[in-house]
C-alpha cells in the first residue's frame, strides 16, 4: 500500500500498559520462531532461489525444472550447502547458462554425481553476481511499477477488493476487468482448491480449476497485463492479489515479485491449521517469502479470518488479536515495513446475537488502533450467510459501514451468493454498489464520534485485548510450535513433527551458501535493509 495509515482514529483509549505488553509478547514469540527457522532451509526456498535468478519452465509432464533439479541435489547430498552453490559448480564446470545448467541437470544430460568440485571463491563470486543482477532486475521492475502507480490515481480508501474464481483464466480476466470498471480497486484470483498442497508451481495458462484458478506464472502474467490495460483505461491503478501460502510459498512469492503482484495473502498459520502443513516447514518458508515480498514492495495480508471461520467469532476474537500480534512481528523481522503488513480479520460473529453489530465495530476499531501504520484487510461475513441473498446484502451493508467508519483500508467485499458458489459476474456488481454507497455516503463518519465513558464497545475491545494477552503469555511460555501442537488456535492441534512437507526441511550446513540471504531485506542479516521505503 502506498501511503501511511491514518493515526487520527484513536477512539478506544486502550490502556497503554496493556498495549505494550501485547506488543512485547508478540515480539518475543516471533523472535524465538525467527531464531529457529533461520537455521533451516527448505526445498521450496532453494527452488525459489533458482526462480529468483530467472529459471523457468517445466518438462513435458509439467514437472518444473527447478523441482527436478532440487530433488536431484537432495538425492546427491548436494543441498545442505545450498542449491545455488551446486548450480554455480555446474555452470562453471559445464560452461552453460543458468537455465541450460538447470535443465541439463534435470533432464539428466548433466550428471550431478560427476561434477568436479570447483573453486569455492569462484563459485561464490559468480553466484553472488548473478544474485545481485537479479535483485537489480527486481528493483528495476518495482521502480517501473511504482512509476505506473504514481501516474494513476490510487483509488479511494477503503480499497474495494473482489475475487474472481471461475477456474478459467480467460473468464477470470473478463470478470476482473468488468469488476474494475464497476469500481473494484483490487482483484484477487482465488486459487484452485488445495493448491497449497502442491509442492511445486504448476506450469502454463490454465482453464480448469475447482473453486478457483490455478496459480501459475503464466496466469499471473496474463491477469497482470489485463489489469494494467484496464488501469490505464480507467486512470485508476488496479491491484492484483494471489495467495502466497502452502508448500510452494517461497516460489509463489517469487512469481509475485516477477509478475508485478501488489498484494499477497500470506500466512503460514493458515497452512498449518487448515492444510496440515508442517509448522517448521511453512514458518521457514514464510520467513524467506516475506523477505522477497519486502524487496518487491508487495503488501502481505494475513489470514486470521480463517480462525473465526472455524470457531465462534465472538468467543474467540482474542485469538485473532493474539495471532495478529505474532504475525505482525514475524513480518517485521523478515524486513517488511509496517505499511506492507496488512492485518487480516473478519466480520464473522453470529448476526442473530444481541449487540453483535457493536461487537464487530469494537473489534474493527481494536485492529485499527493496534496497527495504526498498517493496512487492515477486513473480510466480510461468510459463515452466517445463507441462500437468502437479500439478507446477504444487508449483512454486507453492515460490514461495509463498519469498514468505512473504522477506516479499514482494504474491504474484501462480501457477495450475496456467498453460501452457494464463487461469485457470478453480477454478484460483484451488487457488492460493489453496496460498498460504493457507504464509501461515499459515510465518508466523514469516522471523524464524528467519541465514545461515552461507559461505552460497551470500549469495554469489549479491552476485554478482547486482555484475553489476547493472556493467550500470548501462554504461548510465550511454551513457544509457538508447542502452542500449535496444543491447539491454541481454532482448537486444532498440529504436532511439531506432523503435517505435510517436513521431509522438505533441512538444517543449513555450516557452509550453506545463498547470497539472497545477505541481500534480501530482513532485520537479522546485517546488509538487509528495507529497499525503497
Amino acid at each position: 500500500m502506498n501511503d501511511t495509515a491514518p493515526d487520527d482514529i484513536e477512539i478506544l483509549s486502550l490502556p497503554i500498559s496493556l498495549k505494550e505488553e501485547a506488543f512485547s509478547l508478540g515480539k518475543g514469540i516471533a523472535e524465538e520462531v525467527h531464531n529457529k527457522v533461520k537455521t533451516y532451509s527448505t526445498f521450496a526456498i532453494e527452488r525459489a532461489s533458482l526462480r529468483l535468478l530467472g529459471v523457468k519452465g517445466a518438462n513435458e509432464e509439467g514437472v518444473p525444472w527447478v523441482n527436478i533439479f532440487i530433488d536431484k541435489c537432495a538425492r546427491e547430498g548436494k543441498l545442505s550447502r545450498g542449491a545455488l552453490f551446486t548450480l554455480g559448480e555446474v555452470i562453471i564446470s559445464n560452461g552453460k547458462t543458468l537455465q541450460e545448467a538447470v535443465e541439463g541437470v534435470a533432464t539428466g544430460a548433466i550428471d550431478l554425481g560427476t561434477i568436479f568440485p570447483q573453486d569455492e571463491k569462484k563459485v561464490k563470486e559468480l553466484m553472488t553476481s548473478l544474485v545481485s543482477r537479479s535483485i537489480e532486475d527486481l528493483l528495476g521492475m518495482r521502480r517501473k511499477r511504482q512509476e505506473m502507480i504514481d501516474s494513476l490515481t490510487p483509488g479511494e480508501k477503503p480499497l474495494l477488493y473482489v475475487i474472481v474464481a471461475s477456474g478459467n483464466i480467460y473468464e477470470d480476466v473478463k470478470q476482473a476487468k468488468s469488476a474494475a470498471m464497476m469500481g473494484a480497486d483490487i482483484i484477487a484470483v482465488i486459487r484452485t482448491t488445495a493448491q497449497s498442497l502442491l509442492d511445486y508451481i504448476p506450469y502454463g495458462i490454465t482453464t480448469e480449476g475447482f473453486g478457483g484458478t490455478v496459480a501459475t506464472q503464466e496466469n499471473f502474467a496474463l491477469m497482470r497485463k489485463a489489469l494494467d490495460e484496464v488501469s490505464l483505461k480507467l486512470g485508476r491503478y488496479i491491484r492484483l492479489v494471489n495467495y502466497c501460502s502452502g508448500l510452494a510459498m517461497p516460489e509463489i512469492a517469487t512469481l509475485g515479485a516477477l509478475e508485478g503482484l501488489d498484494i499477497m495473502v500470506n500466512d503460514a498459520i493458515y497452512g498449518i491449521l487448515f492444510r496440515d502443513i508442517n509448522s517448521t516447514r511453512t514458518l521457514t518458508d514464510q520467513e524467506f517469502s516475506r523477505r522477497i515480498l519486502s524487496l518487491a514492495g508487495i503488501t502481505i495480508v494475513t489470514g486470521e479470518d480463517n480462525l473465526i471461520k472455524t470457531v465462534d467469532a465472538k468467543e474467540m476474537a482474542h485469538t485473532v488479536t493474539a495471532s495478529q500480534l505474532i504475525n505482525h512481528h514475524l513480518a517485521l523481522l523478515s524486513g517488511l515495513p509496517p505499511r506492507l503488513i496488512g492485518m487480516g480479520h473478519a466480520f464473522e460473529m453470529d448476526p442473530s446475537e444481541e449487540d453483535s453489530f457493536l461487537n464487530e465495530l469494537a473489534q474493527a476499531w481494536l485492529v485499527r488502533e493496534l496497527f495504526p501504520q498498517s493496512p487492515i484487510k477486513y473480510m466480510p461475513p461468510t459463515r452466517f450467510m445463507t441462500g437468502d441473498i437479500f439478507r446477504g446484502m444487508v449483512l454486507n451493508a453492515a460490514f461495509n459501514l463498519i469498514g468505512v467508519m473504522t477506516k479499514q483500508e482494504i474491504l474484501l467485499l462480501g457477495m450475496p451468493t456467498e453460501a452457494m458458489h464463487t461469485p457470478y459476474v453480477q454478484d460483484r456488481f451488487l457488492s460493489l454498489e453496496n460498498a460504493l454507497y457507504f464509501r461515499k455516503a459515510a465518508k466523514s463518519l469516522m471523524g464524528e464520534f467519541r465514545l461515552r465513558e461507559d461505552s460497551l464497545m470500549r469495554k469489549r475491545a479491552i476485554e478482547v485485548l486482555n484475553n489476547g494477552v493472556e493467550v500470548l503469555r501462554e504461548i510465550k511460555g511454551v513457544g509457538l510450535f508447542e502452542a500449535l501442537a496444543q491447539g491454541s488456535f481454532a482448537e486444532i492441534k498440529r504436532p511439531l513433527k506432523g503435517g505435510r512437507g517436513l521431509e522438505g526441511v533441512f538444517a543449513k550446513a555450516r557452509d550453506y551458501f545463498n547470497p539472497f540471504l545477505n541481500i534480501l531485506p530482513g532485520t537479522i542479516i546485517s546488509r538487509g535493509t528495507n529497499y525503497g521505503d
Partner: protein
Amino acid sequence: MEIKPYGDTLNDGAVQISFSLPLPLSTRGKKAARELVIKMGIMDPRIVFSRDLGEGFSFYIVYGNLIHSVESEILGEDIEEEVTLDYWEINRLIEEKIGRKLVIVGATIGSDAHTVGIDAILNAKGFAGDVGLERYPSFTVHNLGSQVPPETLLEKVMDYKADVILVSQVVTQKNSHIHNLTQLVELVEGSALRDKVIMICGGPYISRELALEIGYDAGFGPHTLPAQVASFIVKRIMEDYQEGIKGCVRGERMKGRTRRVKWKNW
C-alpha cells in the same frame, strides 16, 4: 449464435428466481416451487432459501441453469439512441423555421397526484442538471398540475391553442394509466384536434412502444431529460412541416402523425 444467461462461464445459463406461493412451507410447497421452476426451463433447480411467511404463504429463492437460449440473429441491429439536440439548437431551429413560440400544456391526469416527474420535465429547474422546458425562450408552458380530468385538459388545450400535450401517469394499478391515457386520446380525436397537436406521455412505467400503440406520438420512461423531450418536439414539428408541404403519407407506425400535417392551422 445462441445467447444464454452468464454466471461465471459462457453458456452456463445461470439465473436467479424468487417468488412466494400460497402454500405453507412443507414438502408440498417445495415440490410445487421446484415443479414451477422446471416448467420455466430450469434444468437443475436449487432452492437455496425457503421461508414460511405465515397464513399459508411461503417464499423461495432458486438458482439454476436455464435450458432456453435466444438466437442472436433475431435480436436485430442495435437501435441507435436518437441524437438529442441541445438547448441552443432547439431554440434556434424553432426561431428560424417556425418563427413563433410553441405552446405546451402539461398535466398529470386522472386521480394520479404524482407531479415530480412532469415537473422535472417542465419546471425551469429541470432534472439531473438539464434545464426544464419553461426555461426555453421558444416554448410557452402551461403546467396544470395533477389530478386533472382529461376533459379539463382538453378545454385548456383549446383555450391555449396548444401545439403539444404532455401527460404524465405514474400510478399503474389496475392499468389505470392506460385507461386514462386512452380516454384522453379519444377525447382529443373526438374533437378533431388530433392532427393539430403532438401528444406525448411519460412516466416510470411508460415506454415508447406502449405510447405508440395507444395512439401517442411518443412516450418517455424513467430518467428522461427535458432536452430529450424538447428535441423530439422540434424534430417532429420540423418533419410535419416538411410533410405538410409535400403532403405525403408515411407508413403504419406514423399513424397519429400523418394526420397532423395541418398543425400550423390553429
